[in-house]
């Protein structure tokens, strides 16, 4: 590949991320097809709205499995805020909204990424639970079932909005960062700018794998 690149994700992380990403996207598209009658035409791509519903429901099951793996994999790194460094980063908005001379350094994931992880994890669990009730509503009291629909819609509001932030910041907003999701190798300059503390930690622990100098077992430890 390229000189000056370092490994930031292993294949397991990338596969799980793609699983949750693609299933979430498919759920959004098929969900929109049912949420707005204007988007009913999306059903045509699935052979009718009824099939679209089935695709949505079963993709939901796949998403549930993927989300389980995502949470198991990342909750320690991305699910817990560390103070005071995360608070400092939040106060500076990570240098994204106004000029900051030096963005406060955080761990592997910054508070913005942690917030996204928590929205996806919490919102995802909400979507799975409410979705299951919506799939099998007849066995439960109507008064309970009725509230599953607005909660499902609320989860969509949050995930849909956060998805576009995630998409922007993971691609053109931070050029070079999308490599982490595709090849797993990132330009060390970009990585050092975005996650300086993590780079220092990895270097300190001898875990930083540079291009052309890979060791047999990579040390990210997610393959378990």
């Amino acid at each position: 590949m390229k000189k000056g690149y370092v490994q930031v994700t292993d294949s397991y992380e990338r596969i799980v991320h793609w699983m949750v990403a693609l299933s979430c996207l498919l759920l959004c598209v098929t969900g929109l097809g049912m949420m707005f009658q204007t988007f009913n035409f999306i059903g045509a791509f699935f052979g009718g709205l009824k099939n679209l519903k089935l695709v949505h429901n079963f993709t939901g099951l796949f998403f549930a499995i993927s989300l389980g793996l995502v949470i198991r994999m990342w909750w320690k790194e991305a699910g817990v805020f560390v103070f005071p460094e995360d608070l400092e980063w939040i106060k500076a908005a990570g240098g994204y909204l106004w000029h900051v001379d030096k963005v406060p350094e955080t761990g592997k994931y910054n508070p913005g990424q942690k917030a996204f992880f928590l929205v996806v994890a919490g919102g995802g669990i909400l979507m799975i639970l409410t979705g299951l009730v919506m799939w099998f509503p007849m066995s439960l009291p109507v008064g309970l079932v009725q509230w599953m629909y607005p909660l499902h819609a609320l989860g969509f509001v949050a995930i849909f909005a956060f998805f576009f932030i995630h998409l922007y910041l993971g691609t053109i907003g931070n050029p070079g960062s999308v490599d982490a999701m595709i090849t797993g190798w990132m330009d060390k300059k970009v990585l050092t700018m975005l996650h300086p503390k993590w780079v220092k930690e990895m270097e300190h622990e001898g875990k930083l794998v540079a291009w052309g100098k890979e060791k047999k077992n990579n040390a990210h430890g997610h393959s378990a």
Partner: protein
Amino acid sequence: MNKPELVKLIDTTLCTACRGCQVACKQWNEMPGLRTKQTGTYQNPPDLQWNTWTLIRFQEHVDKATGKFQWIFRKDGCMHCTDAACVKVCPSGALYHTEMKTVGIHREKCIGCKECVAACPFHVPRYDAKTDKVYKCDLCYNPISQSHPPACVKSCITKALTIGPKDEMIKKAYARVKKLGGDANVYGDKFVDGTHVIYILQFKPEVYDELPVNPTVPASVTIWKDLFKPLSLLAGGGVMGGAFLHYMIHGPKVPHEGTGVEEKKGEE
């Protein structure tokens, strides 16, 4: 051709519970009868079903003041709301408002999501697992769109069931209630922006089984459809616009020379 807004009037005080409407409804709509159990009441079938879109509810009523016994007969079925929760929640357009302002159903469009079952304040739509579709009275769309009465009205021998233009029928209902006196009241014109099936009740609504006193579109439906639904597009669109502006004004994050980015040079 402009078709009038229709109202079917059910005068419960004239009903003799012959169940002619129940049978006529099944016959016209080609709905099968299902075997039911004798549970010690006259009520049969016990409730609305996917194949039973209307039925007479048999209720034994004892007047508290006089101790006098009386049967209450109420023909139950779709009320054809103006502000219909079922139409509001239906994702596929299967439930819709007809030109006569009744609530019709395009069954081929139904995807069996059962959202209308949970939304209806009158518990009218019924789901059939076999066809994975929802069923309910459409006030005999075909006949009424050709200015013919629906099957139930046609079969009614006591004229407890009548149908006609909305204003006319409401006027008729209030005149009848005035004549009846006592607790008699008109049920249907005051909520969900007016129903297209209206009752003349002999007693206060709370006396009747399975009849909501103040039916409304559930709050959950309003929050879901009028708040979160538009909010989702607004938020998604807002974020896209925000990202565009961010890219244009603030620009992407790129490493600069001399910003302390390349501190350690150990690895390369």
